[in-house]
């Protein structure tokens, strides 16, 4: 009950602050892992960092192995699925990338429109590389909508 009251107070404060907030302006923030992603603070993060390094060094198979290890530890991380989608794109596996991009979207935090937009762009790339231009355009349009303030 006490916890509930505390939450109510926090809610009231947030409601008050909401009046002071402004719509986002300027360029979209750099793509970063959402703070609420289950990967944040997980030991699997070290595998993800190693995978990112492997991707930069064009060792995409190594990256894939590490990401799949991380997946067993954190199976519901949108960020991890996003990286798997990127890794599949590097391996010219657009269909595989589409699957992971869609999973990343399924697990994406609802209050992160820029992040969701980035995932839609990723999905659009995967679709376009499969020759599915109409679906890709649709995904891009949704990404654009999400980026609008």
């Amino acid at each position, binding site marked *: 009950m006490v916890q509930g009251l505390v939450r*109510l107070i926090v809610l009231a404060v947030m409601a008050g602050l909401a009046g002071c907030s402004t719509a986002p302006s300027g360029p979209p923030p750099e793509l970063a892992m959402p703070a609420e992603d289950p990967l944040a603070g997980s030991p699997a993060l070290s595998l993800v960092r190693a995978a990112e390094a492997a991707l930069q060094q064009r060792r995409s198979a190594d990256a894939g*192995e590490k990401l799949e290890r991380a997946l*067993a530890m954190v*199976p*519901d991380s949108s960020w991890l699925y996003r990286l798997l989608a990127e890794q599949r794109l590097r391996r010219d596996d657009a269909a*595989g990338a589409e699957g992971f991009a869609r999973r990343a979207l399924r697990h994406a935090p609802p209050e992160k429109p820029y992040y969701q937009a980035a995932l839609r762009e990723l999905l659009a790339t995967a679709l376009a590389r499969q020759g599915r231009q109409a679906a890709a355009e649709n995904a891009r349009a949704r990404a654009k909508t999400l980026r609008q303030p």
Partner: protein
Amino acid sequence: MARKPRSRKDSGSASGPTRHLWLKLATVVLVLALVGLAWMDAFVRERFAGHEWQLPARVFAQPVDLYQGRELARDDLRRLLELMRYQERTGAPKPGSYAFSGNTVQLHTRGFGDDDGEPARALRFALTDGTVGPLETASGADVDIARLAPLQIGSIHPGHREDRVLVELDEVPETLVQTLLAVEDRRFHEHWGISLRGIARAMVANIRAGGIVEGGSTLTQQLVKNFWLTRERSIARKLVEIPMAWLLERHYSKDAILEAYLNQVYLGQDGSRAIHGMGLAAQFYFGRELDELEPRHYALLVGLLKGPGQYNPRGNPEAARQRRNTVLRVARDEGVISEAEFRQQRRQDLGVVPRGESALYAFPAFVDLVRRQLAQQYSPGELGGEGLRIQTTLDVLAQIAAESSLRSFFEQNNRAESFNGAVVMTAPESGNVQALVGDKRSRRAGFNRALDARRSVGSLIKPAVVLTALEKPGQYHLGTHVRDEPVEVELDNGRTWAPQNYDLESRGPMPMLDALTQSRNQAMARLGLDLGVSHVVDTLQRLGVNRQLEPYPSLLLGGVEMTPFEVAAWYQTLAGEGFHTPLRAITTVRNRQRERVARYPVSTRAAVDAGPAFVMQWALQQVVQDGTGRHAAQQLPGLKVAGKTGTSDSFRDAWFAGFSGNRLAVVWLGRDDNGAIGMTGSSGALPVWTDLMQRVPQRPLKLQPPDSVERVWLDDDGDRISASGCPGARRYPLLRASIPEQATACGKAGEVSEGVKEWFKGWFD
């Protein structure tokens, strides 16, 4: 012409023609010997340099990752380490050892050299309430993730029966090498392939014995014999062996010869598999790597060279002990070990692990799956000789749990004696096959029911019928009433299909959800017929059924045969939020140099939209909460799981397929002769499933509704919006497109206030 008279003159007392003949003969023999020697020289050089070791493919379980927060029971960790032949030693002083002290675990891992491997490390961590704490090295450095070298669970050697683990000379402990030389060839580093002293000694022994009892062979000669000659003891063989040994020594270093010898020697038999080389023998007899053994083990291995059958430590332990002690004595006399070591080592037991306990034979059903998948892509020659290293997805602890659950069911059910069972466990996010049991006696290799028992799936099919309906949101939602009433269909063959319910009753109209949770046959048959059987078939194939399915009405009630593995393949999609993730048992294939030659990555595709997938998961959770699977909810309090029972006609097959947030398991029970077992999915398979889920770490299902789904109160008939507290109101997750437009009077009044109340309730909960 001038030479002939001189020859005659010099011939002395021999007659001219005879001496001439002898000279010719000698010349011919000499020429033949030189030709033979030249041929042997070419032969030895070509064969030794180009020798291809026959290295069977080795199959490994998934490496075990240790990290903070991992759920791992103390008993499970101990079991795992014992399987991996780690030794419990105070302070865990060397690789392959561990120590428990209160909640603290000291673990000295073995290194392994794959791409994703790591060096040996001395680690320390707490294991509190079944959870791994922060990891650190002996020097106090933090470690995010540590990885245990994967357990070998099998080898594949089609086409020949020779097995070995190649070792390089610098990997072989010096004590083993010195013990070997002390016993088999003391002058190895001095002779040039043959030992005249040895031959003389053998001749004396043979003359005394009146036959050939000793060969006097050097290691080089033994190697030549093992490589290219027969085991027959004859003068003729010696006449070939000796020059070959000499030639081998002329062309190759002592180290190369010694290394080849260590890998070639025959050291025992394991059924049809011949154990060659010290590397494999160490694993076969002691369950550990060569460098983890002690002088007594080396002595036993060296002692076995004299007669692997005669001194087999499992079959003839006393003879093996005497032989080992003899070798230890020689090692002491030659200064390989000290007097104190000799005394200490000879008091020890043989240290041989029982054959049946080896992980190499523990999981035949899973290895069978791996073998079948490999056989599609690799030739017998590649599998038997290339030394491939097959990395699989087997989760050893899940496998042991699956075996234990099935075994304990049969132990507790006397009437189950005549039937058998199978279990498949997978990871929904990756499709990894974590466990596979194909027989209630899990170590028995033979009929693999998990892969080959094609049986009627009964009501396991019903989620596919419901999902087909949910994908038509304009027509159906979980509250839509379907009629549980008799139904008859005239078939093409003139027969009539008229399904009955389990209780032989018909309950009339009921919400689709209830028809599923109570597994009502007539309601599901009617629903499926309304939808069209071919549409249900389409759904099944989208979910992951690869088999050609005929759209007969009986399919709607599971009149279709599948193996437990096939069921797991499509339930995987239901567990995976509508994403089809094909099952995989192999992740990587590496060559003998440990370079990756093939990878089998996780793949996934959206098979069902987020909305229907979520609603389907929720409905299957209700099966466990309130329906035919409620035994699971009672046994797994606090864990959100979902699943479906299945029982085929006349109680021939009992099934349960269900999942949590991180495990999908399918259990089948039945008789090989397809006779009745008198059990249902609820009474037979479900208890096995529940027991299994209790034995392995679980994550609950996360039922997070997507944007396209709302939780809505509906009236008793399911066709109007209602509200909490209204008569007959029930709440369902509905796709927005399926939410009725009309509302009851009570529903209209309660709608707004209910929404606000629920919002606040969420905050206070």
